[in-house]
């Protein structure tokens, strides 16, 4: 089990998300940085979809109440077990009574603590992810607080494990920092054509700043004013995480994992699945750019990313067998 000593700014249990209940008004939820969850799970030998702890801005501390195998992934952070530095993207044993303390994120925004066996909370509507709007899933449907104790699912019995993990040389993408302004690919949606060439240009040229009132529901972007040729009143219809909307303010909003299930604002497009993990790590106050792409390019990007986490799984399984 894991005891939370300091949850940091915003911590919750998340897995790969909840599919199948949009028509009941239940959103997908799930890890904001889906790639980090996948790789972290692969590192400790879990299925892709096992639940982990998502922390925001670092600055958290937890204690092991029995020996468990863990991997910390996501944003660059300084992590220590009982004062001794540990690596990101490494699997290692976290012994009963030891404390893992993590400093603030050097860049990026979200860290994942993956545990062999997964965080064991009840599965609600097919997922262990926390749905804060509905107050269910995760640990009692709420954010984690100091003193919470989380069960860990059964894992392979193994011998004492030496730390092992991924190197920055082999996986530069996993170790990059998030200080540069990333260009996110998006697939244009119907209302993209309602922008004239000048406004499309403005949208693509701008370095959009993530506003402070951004959260797991949506990222509000600040920059130049984007005005459609015609202002369309649209009836509410289905939307998803990644949807880029243009409210009347002319400042776009990107729906994130806790997105509402329906909305009526015009849609400029949708950030491709593979780049949602990048966006999840761009901190408030930093900027992003957009570039359009085709559905085929989005598929290739997702395939490449999946191959990436498959390779991590293979490498870590190999290391585990020779340990």
């Amino acid at each position, binding site marked *: 089990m894991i005891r939370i000593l300091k949850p940091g700014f915003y911590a919750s249990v998340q897995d790969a998300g909840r599919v199948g209940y949009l028509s*009941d008004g239940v959103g997908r939820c799930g890890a904001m940085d889906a790639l980090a969850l996948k790789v972290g799970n692969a590192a400790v030998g879990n299925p892709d979809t096992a639940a982990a702890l998502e922390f925001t801005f670092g600055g958290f501390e937890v204690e092991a109440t029995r020996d468990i195998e863990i991997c910390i992934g996501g944003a660059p952070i300084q992590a220590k077990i009982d004062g001794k530095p540990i690596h990101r993207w490494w699997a290692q044993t976290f012994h009963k009574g030891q404390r893992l303390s993590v400093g603030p994120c050097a860049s990026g925004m979200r860290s994942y603590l993956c545990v062999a066996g997964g965080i064991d909370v009840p599965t609600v509507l097919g997922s262990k992810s926390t749905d804060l709007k509905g107050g269910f899933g995760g640990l009692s449907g709420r954010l984690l607080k100091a003193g919470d104790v989380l069960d860990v699912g059964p894992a392979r019995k193994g011998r004492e494990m030496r730390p092992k993990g991924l190197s920055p040389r082999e996986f530069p993408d996993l170790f990059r920092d998030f200080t540069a302004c990333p260009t996110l690919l998006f697939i244009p*949606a119907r209302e993209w054509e309602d922008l004239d060439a000048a406004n499309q240009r403005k949208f693509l040229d701008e370095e959009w700043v993530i506003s402070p009132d951004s959260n797991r529901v949506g990222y509000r972007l600040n920059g130049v004013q984007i005005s459609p040729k015609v202002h369309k009143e649209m009836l509410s219809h289905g939307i998803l995480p990644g949807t880029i909307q243009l409210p009347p303010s002319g400042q776009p909003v990107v729906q994130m994992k806790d997105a509402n299930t329906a909305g009526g604002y015009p849609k400029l497009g949708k950030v491709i699945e593979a780049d949602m993990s990048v966006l999840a790590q761009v901190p408030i106050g930093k900027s992003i750019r957009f570039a359009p792409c085709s559905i085929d390019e*989005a598929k290739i990007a997702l395939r490449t990313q999946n191959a990436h986490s498959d390779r991590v799984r293979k490498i870590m399984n190999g290391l585990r067998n020779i340990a």
Partner: protein
Amino acid sequence: MNILSITSLADSAITVVLDNVIGAAAAGSVRAAKAAVEALDHSAIDEVTASYVSITVYYDAMLLSQSDLIDLVRETLAPITIGAGGAGRLLSVPCCYDPIYGADQIDIAETLGCSVDDVIDAHLNTTFDVYAVGFLPGLPFLGDMPAGFSIPRRATPRVKVPAGAVAIANGQSVIYPWESPGGWHIIGHCPVTLFDPTRTDPAVFCAGDRVKFVSISAENLASAHIQEVTS
């Protein structure tokens, strides 16, 4: 069935627009279309949601191309008639209109230039269509209030609307399943749990249902429940 337009939400979903006017006719088309696409039970289709005049079909682009999905949806909907599958369930839903639960009753009546009883009667005498469920888990959007009973949303939304609040705005009505911020005018209270994540069907309402409110007294809140009316 006539499809007005199909727009894509990138590589994840398509929205199929079936009507351009909100109302019972649109609700009928939407209900029939959603049922027909769900009945395909296609491995690449994750889920189908219904809204006022459209359905949205969520799919896995790794398993099915968007053009194939669009062809499939067109073929599926072409032979469907609007009345297919019959009318939705008719549910009788308890609502307590006691003034202590209707914080905005007087404001509504003043704005509309009628009596509080007129507003309550209009609400009680309407058979609503559930146009969509969303915004919050289990929250039903119900339409339409009779002509003359449409009122814009509050200029300043409330920070907290209590769970169970029955409210109206823009010719429609909602029931808040949870305490939440909200801008609709509160006229009553429904004491039934509208969303329970431990149930297989967590939400009480689904798009396509019909709703008739039944007035209950404040003393009878505890025993009130939602009933399906068979006609």
